């Protein structure tokens, strides 16, 4: 019935997928959220900012569990109430998350983008990660940055982003069964889990084995 040659889902296709439960976007608050080829996403009430005063750096040579705790301590969660603003100043960076919980099927890839309305004020919703793997589920995390010149007041529930869907049937490694699924089922602005990457483990191991043992003096 639909033209499967087209790569991006149209509004009617998105609606069909939502009704049949193959895509989950909840809560769907307003019918206008569904555009011609995308669905608008709202800002959730939780944010995470970096506590710059606690640590000078994250020490890659420490063990994985210690780094996990360091990252947690380095990150401060902020939760705004309904109708309470979160102000992002020029040059500031914060993590936010979608209000909506999103779940993708096996044959779709999502693309997160900002909305022009907010982009014109200088708000970026992602810096590097716009790509959502098939079978991802959870809140999408915003890498919020104000690249404009004036502070921006953000409120939970504002439609600041949108997601579109591309067909990608045939992938063997979906997010649910892939080797890396650090953010599967994530709720709220979950911080980086770089310490779970295999490459990081390797570097961590090399740093530990090459460091001089305590008590030995260098040349």
């Amino acid at each position, binding site marked *: 019935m639909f033209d499967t040659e087209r790569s991006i889902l149209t509004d009617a296709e998105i609606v069909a997928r939502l009704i*049949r439960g193959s895509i989950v976007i909840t809560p769907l608050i307003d019918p206008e959220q569904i555009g011609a080829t995308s669905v608008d996403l709202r800002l959730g009430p939780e944010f995470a900012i970096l506590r710059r005063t606690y640590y000078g750096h994250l020490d890659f040579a420490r063990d994985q569990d210690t780094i996990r705790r360091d990252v947690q*301590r380095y990150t401060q969660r902020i939760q705004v109430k309904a109708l309470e603003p979160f102000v992002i100043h020029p040059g500031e960076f914060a993590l936010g998350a979608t209000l909506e919980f999103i779940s993708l099927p096996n044959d779709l890839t999502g693309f997160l983008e900002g909305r022009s309305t907010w982009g014109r004020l200088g708000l970026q919703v992602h810096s590097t990660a716009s790509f959502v793997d098939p079978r991802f589920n959870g809140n999408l995390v915003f890498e919020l940055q104000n690249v404009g010149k004036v502070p921006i007041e953000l409120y939970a529930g504002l439609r600041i982003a949108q997601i579109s869907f591309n067909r990608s049937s045939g992938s063997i490694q979906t997010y649910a069964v892939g080797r890396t699924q650090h953010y599967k089922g994530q709720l709220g602005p979950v911080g980086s889990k770089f310490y779970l990457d295999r490459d990081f483990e390797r570097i961590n191991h090399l740093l530990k084995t090459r460091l001089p043992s305590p008590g030995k003096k260098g040349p």
Partner: protein
Amino acid sequence: MQDSDRGKRVSVSATSDLALCEILIAEVFDAIARLDAYLDDVESSAQPRSGIPLNLFRNIVRKVLYPSLEQPLGLIKQTATSKTPLNPSEFQAIVNLAGSTFIGLASVHRFLKYLRPPEPPSEIFTLLREIQAAFPDPAIGENEPDVLLSEIFNYGEIDLHAALEWKLREEKIFSAVPGEETIVIILPYTQVNNPLMWTIISHEVGHFAEKQYSLGRKVISKILGCVPADVADSTELDWVEELISDLVAVRVLGPAYLFSFISLTIPQSSLGVPSLTHPSDLSRVRIAFQELNHTCLTDAVPTLKSLVQNSVELFEEKFKFNEKYLGDKNLGPSKIHGKPLADVVALINQELDDLKIARITVDSLRCAETLAKNLAKGHPIAASQSETSVLQSKLAHLEALLADGNIEGSRDLFFEIQNGMVEKPCSCSEIINAGYLHRYEKTIPHIIDRLSASTLDDFANEYRDELKQLDHQLEVSLQTTEIHKLFL
């Protein structure tokens, strides 16, 4: 006696399959894991550089509390492996061991005040506002309580005049202080992130409402024909106040309140006897159960109905042996004022009906049953979709039009479908009832399954993460529903 005469299942699927001693172990294990999760929270959020006290508590969890469950768990495993039912003394031993661990846990709890508590999540206030909104009289919501953390669940009033009088007189600023009492709701430290146990707040709000409308005195005066001068300090009034608060909680939150009450009291080693201030736990559970059966627990909500029934049966199993010593069939210990509790409950219900407190509906409980399925999939459960079958048939029609290339003709139908897809926000009571369904259908059976399969220590770490994830799922649901309501 309540021995486990069933063979041990490989994988249990619902609480109804569990015996009382297994429920006790699961509840105690869950309570220790919750303490552990709280310490995690203190460490990561409130006190990143905490040292000796935090480590001390961690050691108590690892070296005392979890190991104290090994012996009762061993007995359960033994009976499962040998397929021999527990004899009455083995059963009693398990009950005692679980009970003493719970007492140990409660003593640890008293010293948590030495750690800096994290800020209570704001979702507590979302629930609080919903409970207050069940009262048509806005006076109930005007005095928004604050939430404090302590050892127990409680309701308190801080009277600034009374608390500061000596100082204020000295400073001659007495008149500048407002005379109103500030209402405080007190939560135990380890329940601060557990939305399921926040339901006890509804009982505490019930106390506020009782005071606001002098409901207890009204009921006493109906019983006696007058209010005696010494009624303020009487056990009779205290008991009536407790029953009023229980009935308010059941009206507003439904089965969730009864579940939380059972969850709180069943692991305790006490005999559940009445005190000078409270009727016995058994009477309170029975009254709440009757109330639910008369109102919302119909055949339209079969899962909830059977879970409530099973939980009450387990509670009866634990406490019924003591029934003849409870002595609270009548109101209070006084022979003069003695009145059957059932009659007192009827009088209270009349008063509550007059206040027009909103009751939880069967539809809400049906919604909770649906939401519990989504919770099991890892979804937050902030909103629910209306019936999709109508949308499905309209969608089939739309697809047929599009297949014919009739885009113009399909536009109105498309907008109609789009409008029908909007979800409605769930209420806190729906979310929390769904949370309890999930707990009794999945979490508690899962604990017993895993406890019999792995070492306590291994499972404890894994379970603590699951516990935090589920708490967070419920908190996010409560958070989201509040934002959702802004756009209605």
